[in-house]
């Protein structure tokens, strides 16, 4: 668009807080999300999933009550063929919900011709976009927290033992990681809702990106690693560097980051993520759980990676939105 450097410079000197009206936007958007049919359907889906998987998990766990110190964490991670564990379902339900919360955020208002009316009020675009993002994130957090409570409630009723503080803390961090994972998909769909005029296009593009990472990225990472770090002589170092490259590439995908974070949080005995050398295990008694602080240290890069990706996508959308001309 025809923006002179001078005009851009002046823009930064604009008066008034960019957050004026933020909470009005958040409240309106959250009310929309929580009363909308779209979210109602997804909520039912996730509640059914939670009840189903946890029911199966409880059936399996009843035999080990009293032996397993992390019984309540097992509620999330125990599956029974053919049913995967609850975390397995979350891996694709969370992106789905996050995309559903964002894909028509901006273009929907443009098509309904409400955008210019809203922006004619004394607020900056910043407040509108950030408000929509926050509302999506809060809604996601609210739904997940409700599911969390549901699972704990079921666990208490059927297992008959209270959870330990460690279990509660770990599963709360798991909740945080899940919201951060959802944040990535939320800001992606928000970005697409700015780029594309049609909500359907934005939704399909978001889902395409998600499919790409879920289905293809693992294969691509493997192929690229094999190509760049081939195993020529069958040396252990060769295998190791290939595996490390593959993992490094795989970690570009938010799915990998989330998977690793969940693994370390819900399985306290996991001492390292990725290929483990025997030397790293020296002095450690295999099978002893790590304290939560150590597990957190382990997943800190994954967690910050998810948050950084969220911020990056949001900022990209923000810049595009600022430059967009609103005539509708």
């Amino acid at each position: 668009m025809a923006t002179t450097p001078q005009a851009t410079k002046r823009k930064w000197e604009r008066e008034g807080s960019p957050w004026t009206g933020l909470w009005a936007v958040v409240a309106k958007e959250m009310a929309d999300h929580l009363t909308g049919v779209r979210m109602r359907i997804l909520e039912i889906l996730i509640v059914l999933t939670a009840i189903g998987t946890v029911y199966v998990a409880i059936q399996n766990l009843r035999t080990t009550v009293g032996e397993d110190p992390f019984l309540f964490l097992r509620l999330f991670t125990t599956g029974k063929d053919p049913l995967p564990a609850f975390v397995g379902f979350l891996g694709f339900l969370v992106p789905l919900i996050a995309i559903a919360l964002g894909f028509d955020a901006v273009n929907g208002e443009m098509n309904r011709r409400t955008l210019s009316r809203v922006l004619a009020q004394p607020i900056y675009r910043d407040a509108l976009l950030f408000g929509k993002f926050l509302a999506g994130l809060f809604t996601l957090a609210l739904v997940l927290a409700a599911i969390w409570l549901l699972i704990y409630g079921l666990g208490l009723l059927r297992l008959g033992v209270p959870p330990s503080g460690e279990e509660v803390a770990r599963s709360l961090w798991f909740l945080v990681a899940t919201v951060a994972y959802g944040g990535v998909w939320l800001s992606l769909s928000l970005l697409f809702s700015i780029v594309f005029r049609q909500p359907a296009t934005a939704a399909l593009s978001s889902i395409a990106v998600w499919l790409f990472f879920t289905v293809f990225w693992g294969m691509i990472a493997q192929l690229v690693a094999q190509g760049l770090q081939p195993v020529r002589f069958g040396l252990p170092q060769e295998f190791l560097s290939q595996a490390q490259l593959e993992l490094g590439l795989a970690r570009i995908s938010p799915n990998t980051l989330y998977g690793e974070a969940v693994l370390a949080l819900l399985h306290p005995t996991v001492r390292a993520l990725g290929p483990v050398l025997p030397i790293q295990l020296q002095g450690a008694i295999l099978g002893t759980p790590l304290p939560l602080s150590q597990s957190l240290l382990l997943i800190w890069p994954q967690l910050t990676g998810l948050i950084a990706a969220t911020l990056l996508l949001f900022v990209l959308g923000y810049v595009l939105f600022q430059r967009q001309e609103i005539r509708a």
Partner: protein
Amino acid sequence: MSSGSGNGEGVVIQTEGLTKRYWDLVAVDHLDLSIHEGEVFGVLGPNGSGKTTTILMLLGLTEPTEGSARVLGFDPVRQPLKVKAHVGYLPDQVGFYDELTARENLSYIAKLNGIPRREAYRRIDESLERMGLADVADRRVGTYSRGMKQRLGLAELLLKRPRVVILDEPTLGLDPEAAREFLHTIEGLKEEGITVLLSSHLLHQVQAVCDRVGLFHRGKMVLEGTVPELARRVLGGAYRIRLEVADSTQDLTEALRRTPGVVSARRVDGNVYELEAGEDVRSEVARAVIEAGAGLLSLEREEPSLDEIYARYFQEVSADGNDTTSNEA
């Protein structure tokens, strides 16, 4: 008419050299505009002449490429929040959240304006009442007709007690009856002392409510003034007077033509005459009729049509253009 406040104080909207370019297209070209407090100003011109772009720049919704604007003394580029707190804007195609009721829609806008809740309730009721929407206030806006949505749009503007109201093509898509009613409401705003800027490509439809108009053509304001002023400038005779007399036996054309100020007189049929005059000479005409011994039934001024002015102006401009080219050749 134009409230006589030609001094700097009464100016609420002012632009200097305001320009907007889209790549190589000049949408608004060095616009100098000043609108006075309490007047109804019409930004008129065909589609694509730069009306909407001008409005967007006044509200800080798009940035000018060049030049500057002041609205209520604020710079829309740097102080858009202050401008938008006092200026109500109705876009050319208003949309509402269809799944919400009128009251809910307005309540969101009130919150965005930071109006306290109790005060907001009061103002929402008041403005819905005023726009005749009180009965349907709790119906989903999806069920509203185009005219009702337009009135809801005005109700929303009233909510923030604006000092200036900017309406983009407010009669677009309304049937003639609804359009007339809507224009009547605009006159009501003026009576409250609200300055109104409205844009339209339907010149004849809005000319009656405008104190002053600016005629746009390809991003430039080519003519500006009151309708009679423009008529005088472009058409010559500014006033058209239509009168009906009781007595048909006598031909008054000559007597009327001799009345000072009258440019031409014509007997339309039987008892009806049409005059053109340089100024308002209705009382002189009335006297002339009485003195000629005829009975006067009605005497009214006909507004010259803006469409005619616009068309005539461009005829002249293009004729001039032809002259210069032939001189150069």
